[in-house]
């Protein structure tokens, strides 16, 4: 299936290659570079590029292109999903996935890639199994390896591969047994000029960090499970019990994982926690435009809105902006025409605003489009959909774990058209 993998950085250098079948010359990447040139922007490179003898499937993450070479028909999502899994694994192993980090850990990278695919077909992709096979590098281990000359390859036989619970490694031991769950909801919304909502959806995930000894069997129940319109699970969740009782029952993987992602349908009214008042106008005659934005809280359920950042891509005709914020800091990059305003917390008594003028190219006619405003924010201790975890029970082990649940609401793709 997957023949080879090339890692290409943003300047177009192939800095790592790995072949699972025969060696494919790296000249095959020329087709990719061609497409990259045509696309001008990295994110516009088509994920699938046909060449006379091969097909190049690529994903772009962390400013690196992961280009897989395949020769025969294969579902493209299969490859794309795998490539993303590779990136996730690197992130899991090294904390960040970047060119220098990959180069520093090239041995581990090769070992991991070797185990992930066998003859091009995925073999061990669960991070728990991989970590059993190949230990992630730590400073201590690097030092020890340097002295003793051993490698990261595990000494024990990787029995996890044989398990029916392949996502959990065996023999887990902790002194502090804890299970944390973060319910994070993101609001995707498009707000139109007049402030009315065109579309709004809530996408939520439950990320877990479970550090429990042995083989615990957890059940998580919700106060209002019927809110969840569409869900997708980590393979550990027993689908049957969700179907019948709306309870999440699972043997958790060890460490961090995404238990569940869900969708709260657009049919339900979504509370929009912020509003943006804007007045952006260009005049035909003068080379100055007016710019004014105010951000305020709307339906926040009494919680504070934090980490508010407003970004906007200004039209090409804008040369510079002279603005004064009532709060926070702002920057305008005259090259990319990107305006960014970091507000921080919103104080409902004193709404933050950004006012000033835009200087336009002299003589040029006024731009016919207004910029869209992208908003980021966070609200702690609130799941905007109203989802509430009822309880978490553990079976199968004797000890009493420490349990914690955190809620957070964030802006996803939150856009205000002006």
């Amino acid at each position, binding site marked *: *299936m997957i023949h080879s993998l090339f890692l290409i950085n943003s300047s177009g250098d192939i800095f790592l290659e*790995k*072949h699972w079948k025969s060696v494919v010359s790296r000249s095959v990447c020329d087709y990719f570079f061609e497409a990259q040139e045509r696309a001008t*922007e990295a*994110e*516009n490179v*088509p*994920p*699938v590029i*046909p060449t006379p003898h091969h*097909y190049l499937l690529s994903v*772009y*993450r962390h400013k690196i292109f992961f280009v897989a070479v395949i*020769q*025969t*028909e294969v*579902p*493209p*999502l*299969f490859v*794309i*999903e*795998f490539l*993303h899994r590779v990136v996730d694994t690197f992130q899991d192993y090294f904390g960040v996935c970047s060119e220098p980090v990959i180069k520093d850990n*090239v*041995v581990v990278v*090769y*070992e991991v890639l*070797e185990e992930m695919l066998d*003859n091009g*077909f*995925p*073999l061990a*992709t669960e991070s728990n199994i991989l970590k059993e096979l190949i230990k992630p590098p730590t400073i201590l281990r690097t030092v020890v390896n*340097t002295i003793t*000359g*051993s490698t990261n*390859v595990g000494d024990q*036989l990787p029995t996890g591969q*044989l*398990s*029916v619970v*392949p996502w959990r490694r*065996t023999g887990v031991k902790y002194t502090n047994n804890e299970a944390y769950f973060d319910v994070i909801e993101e609001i995707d919304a*498009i707000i139109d000029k007049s402030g009315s909502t*065109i*579309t709004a959806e809530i996408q939520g995930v439950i990320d877990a960090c479970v550090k429990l000894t042995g083989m615990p069997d957890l059940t998580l129940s919700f106060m209002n499970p019927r809110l969840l319109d569409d869900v*997708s*699970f*980590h*393979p550990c969740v*027993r689908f049957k*019990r969700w*179907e*019948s*009782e709306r309870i999440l029952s699972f043997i958790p993987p060890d460490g961090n994982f995404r238990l569940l992602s869900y*969708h709260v349908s*657009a049919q339900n009214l979504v509370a929009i926690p912020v509003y943006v008042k804007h007045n952006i106008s260009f005049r035909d005659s003068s080379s100055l435009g007016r710019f004014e934005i105010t951000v305020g809280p709307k339906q926040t359920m009494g919680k504070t809105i934090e980490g508010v950042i407003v970004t906007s891509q200004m039209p090409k005709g804008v040369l510079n902006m002279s603005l004064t914020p009532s709060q926070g800091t702002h920057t305008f990059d005259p090259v990319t025409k990107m305006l960014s305003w970091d507000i921080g917390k919103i104080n409902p008594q004193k709404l933050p605003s950004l006012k000033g003028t835009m200087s336009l190219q002299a003589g040029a006619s006024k731009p016919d489009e207004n910029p*869209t405003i*992208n908003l980021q924010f966070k609200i702690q201790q609130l799941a905007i959909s109203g989802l509430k975890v009822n309880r978490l029970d553990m079976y199968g082990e004797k000890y009493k774990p420490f349990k914690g649940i955190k809620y957070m609401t964030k802006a996803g793709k939150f856009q205000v058209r002006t």
Partner: protein
Amino acid sequence: MSAAPAYSEDKGGSAGPGEPEYGHDPASGGIFSSDYKRHDDLKEMLDTNKDSLKLEAMKRIVAMIARGKNASDLFPAVVKNVACKNIEDPNQLIRASALRVLSSIRVPIIVPIMMLAIKEAASDMSPYVRKTAAHAIPKLYSLDSDQKDQLIEVIEKLLADKTTLVAGSVVMAFEEVCPERIDLIHKNYRKLCNLLIDVEEWGQVVIISMLTRYARTQFLSPTQNESLLEENPEKAFYGSEEDEAKGAGSEEAAATTLPARKPYVMDPDHRLLLRNTKPLLQSRSAAVVMAVAQLYFHLAPKAEVGVIAKALVRLLRSHSEVQYVVLQNVATMSIKRRGMFEPYLKSFYIRSTDPTQIKILKLEVLTNLANETNIPTVLREFQTYIRSMDKDFVAATIQAIGRCATNIGRVRDTCLNGLVQLLSNRDELVVAESVVVIKKLLQMQPAQHGEIIKHLAKLTDNIQVPMARASILWLIGEYCEHVPRIAPDVLRKMAKSFTAEEDIVKLQVINLAAKLYLTNSKQTKLLTQYVLSLAKYDQNYDIRDRARFTRQLIVPSEQGGALSRHAKKLFLAPKPAPVLESSFKDRDHFQLGSLSHLLNAKATGYQELPDWPEEAPDPSVRNVEVPEWTKCSNREKRKEKEKPFYSDSEGESGPTESADSDPETESESDSKSSSESGSGESSSESDNEDQDEDEEKGRGSESEQSEEEGEKRKMKKKKVPEGQGEGSSSDEGSDSSSSSSESEMTSESEEEQVEPASWRKKTPPSGKSASAAKEVSLLDLEDFTTPSVQPVSSPTVVSTSLAADLEGLTLTDASLVPSLLSPVSGVGRQELLHRVAGEGLAVDYAFSRQPFSGDPHMVSVHIYFSNSSDASIKGLHVGTPKLPAGISIQEFPEIESLAPGESATAVMGINFCDSTQAANFQLCTQTRQFYVSIQPPVGELMAPVFMSENEFKKEQGKLMGMNEITEKLTLPDTCRSDHIVVQKVTATANLGRVPCGTSDEYRFAGRTLTSGSLVLLTLDARPAGTAQLTVNSEKMVIGTMLVKDVIQALTQ
């Protein structure tokens, strides 16, 4: 030069001095040059006795080979250590690793050794080794394709494997080596369907896409009836279109509406596939979701395809590459099944931050989804897109508007006006694109749009984009009769600037000139000749050619007379309007989700998706035989119930044996020694520590099924006496019709549940024969006929003969009624008339919970008379009752005489009209009248219905909000066991138990007798004794009272 220092430098000193060189990792090569001397250490490592060193050495060799490094000098060492020693290593991981190394050596010499090793590994005890064997098959095949036949044998063997670990890998091998051997799948089809949910994600994708092809060859098209109707509607005289549509969904309906034509009945295996893949739509892996989506798109009846839309829309939140692929597929689907995505229209709205390629795909989908009703919103949305900064996207939007305009006649003028407004846009690209689209639109109805053409003519002064100029010129030429004054002037201007124009514009100028010459030669003759002369000396030969050609055609000369007479026909022939259609049209002949579909071109190795067969191939090829004794042991084991782990069966999939569970349980029961007995690969995991989970899993899913199966078995039993009752009552003749309708009602409610059983009966013709009792098909329900698997505790069946009822015979012990539906009789006897008040006549009554024979809406009440006086009582009957509105009574036949000391029983029916109001009536003897009243407990106002868990949930979902009553309670210690809880609930209310996947939840269902509204009761018992009782019913009063009663019963 010794290798060691060089390497330690390279690697930042991973190998300390004096250490053996294990530290060098050839896997990290590609950067480091390799040296053959280094292989010495690998040989050394292979020769050690330590497992870990061997394992590591082998891993490195694999790494080297994978990089295409020549590892052939390691060959003897590997073969010696691996092929001979390690392949028989007691540790399964080492065996697997050895095979992996061996199969990765791309040297043709070792093909025989490899073949041998694969064959051996394929029958290894460890599923992990067998998985590795499956992985090795494509490797060997690519090395030497002559081995195909032998490899197919191995594949066949591995396909029969019952573990989830192997399934994905072997199907992968099947796809690479022999995708055309569809016959190998038959026997394993059901097993694969059932294992699917437990296979790892990558395997799921491969299996699903293989099964899609398989299903296309083996089953009939679920939409064939519909398509037949579409083709020749005059044939549809059997029923209305709606009936037909229903027919696609439910086989029964189709069977009744189309008796003459062979009705479409979905093959149960087809249904099995659809049912077992559906939960995978919830997978976290986009590839799996897409695979299921394409399976549904290609295989499911129209009515069911809709379920995939939600999951696909969910994927749009994923990485942009995933979005790209998903949107391509959605675009194709949305052409065929527009309705499916319509509710999600807004999810395809475009954000300014989307990459351009995503924007354009979303636009495509939005355009496909646009229809009469949503077009205003879509157009409004498009309007905002036109002002975007991304010009490619704007151009695509204009195209999309054009397509909407052609597809939806109502908005054509609006769109056209909008596009004309865009002509004054400052951006040239926008204008140019608009012109091109307007041109196409005008071609559809040119007559009305003279104004627009004039407007366009004016634009020739400003627009510089060649394509747009060419379009305008063509339009003016084509419709010059609508703008007779302007057209010559445009030609004049163009003639002036002819030399400076682009080639396509020049061609159109010639074109325009020719057309004008033909229609208006007086004004334009000179101009045309001028243009043609200019063109004659053009640099471009196309233009010179065209000029020469045109001149010959239009200017009459001696030689070319014949042609020029027809010039007008040639140039001014009416031209069909262009059709603006999606580039995704007809892409669905490629299997969706495939690379070929994405590229719209056949990729190497693409397997065509076959068309549905005309006639279904024999379905019995998929029947599998299972040795009976295995099953018996399973049954015994099943009693040790564990929580279901990851069950693959939904509510109705009772008959499916989770295939992998058989050997495991067997191994458990046979104290892990009988690996050779029975099916060869069994008890494979006995040496591994994970067995416990494995068993738990196996047992979990199994026990659940056994529960369901048990229930079915009981149901079957229940049906038998009913049938008898019906038969005997029809002998009676009098009330037979109503009684049969009664039993029909119950059987109807069971129908869906029983359905798999009934089709099973049809499919394997051999299943009925006596000998077949031992060879039960894997999915066969018939096995309950074999005595060995009879459930032990089946209560004796007493015929609830209606005839007996009519004669007033007593069923003294109501608990003898064994039905599943009403396992317990209601509240015990209650006093109707005390001995003293009745002057020696004592009357008791009880709710028998049997359907009342005369009227299904009536509660049947048994009345027990006993005469304790010393005279006989004569002429016992019911006097004129005074009843509240709605309540009616079916009196019992008069009892002529009751001798002293004797007792008698009668049955009467009361329709309580779903209320707990008392029925007052008189009990008359010859001499006296007694006023009596019967007040029913709420629990008696209903009759149990049987439903599956899924149905239950579906119905419950419909009865939310006001119709749901929830109460918390604490169960006393005496009332914690399943048995007691069920008994108490059923004693309180006449409800039927609904199977439930979990141990601490109880579900009951019934219908009120008069109105037939559903009453659903759920009791969720938590371990601590707290419990939650939920009643869902349309009849809120009944619900509330029922909750009260049940709580009282439980907490007492």
